[in-house]
């Protein structure tokens, strides 16, 4: 796992490099980035496979997937409990409070 999203072992949250603001001040309930903050490197808190993590924003699901999945080929991702097709990964950017589930598809029988 690279440093794009890292977990602090003590607090179970991630403090990325370059955290300058309090999340609660930067994001509304929907997690949308305030218009005056667009383009800046800020921090969001997301839930990945049940664990809270903080990440630098903006970050796409594709970028997140590459930071997590060591075996990408059969990796599927659910974004807020809904499976996202791989073509949408680069187009979907995470927002504060998003739930991400990463799992490996199986096909045996």
């Amino acid at each position, binding site marked *: 796992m690279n440093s794009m999203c890292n977990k602090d072992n003590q607090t179970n949250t991630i403090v990325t490099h370059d955290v300058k603001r309090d999340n609660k001040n930067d994001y509304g309930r929907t997690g949308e980035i305030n218009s005056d903050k667009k383009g800046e490197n800020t921090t969001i808190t997301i839930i990945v496979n049940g664990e809270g993590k903080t990440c630098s924003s903006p970050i796409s699901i594709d970028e997140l997937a590459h930071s997590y999945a060591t075996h990408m080929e059969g990796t599927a991702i*659910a974004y807020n409990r*809904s499976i996202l097709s791989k073509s949408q990964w680069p187009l979907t950017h995470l927002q504060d409070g998003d739930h991400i589930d990463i799992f490996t598809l*199986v*096909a*045996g*029988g």
Partner: protein
Amino acid sequence: MLNKDDIRRYSRQLLLNEIDEEGQSNLRSAHAVVIGLGGLGTLASRFLVGAGVGNITLIDGDIVEVSNLQRQVTYNETHLGDLKAKALSNELHKVDPSIHITSKSLFACKRNLQKLIGSATCVLDCTDSVAIRKDINAACIAAKKPLFIAAASGLSWQAINLPCHSFLASAHQLAPSSHCTSENHHSSETDYSSGTDYSSQTDHADHVNQQCQPPNVSSKVDAPCGCYDCLVAQLNVTQDCRSQGVLGPVVGIAACHQATQALLFLAKRHTATIQWGRYIVGNAIDASVQSFHLPPSPDCKVCQ
């Protein structure tokens, strides 16, 4: 109308509101097509026969090998080297001789799937590779056949129920009950070659096809759901039992879930609360089961 023997045989499930007498009659008139007779198919089909699904087609071109016995519970050492479809048919016939079991010792593929599932009330995908699973998915969408998928590898199992557009046929126009008759039937066909054209052959499935109405799935579909292709498009799924191994009971869990879903649907086709389009992800290590909605992929070439 159930007779005394039926009531005795099915007494445990008749007590369930989800089955009851009406559901039991529906099961008797249903036709389930089970594709793949390995760890999933052997167990799922055993439960379908036990529950009284009146017509079952078993499809697999493989033979029983010793490495199968660890998880493919209906086979034993006396079946080694036998065609799976034939061996399983024989064993299931012992469970209930009144069930119409058609065994087809061939490998399902693009060319023969439409024929194989033509008379199905539903299809159970019990195969073990993405390639054939995609073909089954496409065939079920083309024929508007509800599809129950399960899979397992390592210590994980996954499953999904797909309406395959059948709910579009009529959410409100309920089809009349089908009138399939029950009679002893126990047939088999053998073909080792993949892609055999069965268009010139007649069998019991055709007989059923003439008598059963196509299913109209009116069970709740809360949101539009995608298909198997939406799930695996652009992904290279390599996790199968051959490469990753599998623990017998794990594939058994998947098969039990799959059979349960199929039975609930077949018993109360028009009213059952089926979770369509929910992808179930189970893990035997932490005993977790999660489900995720599978929406249609906007660029899916199969269902969009």
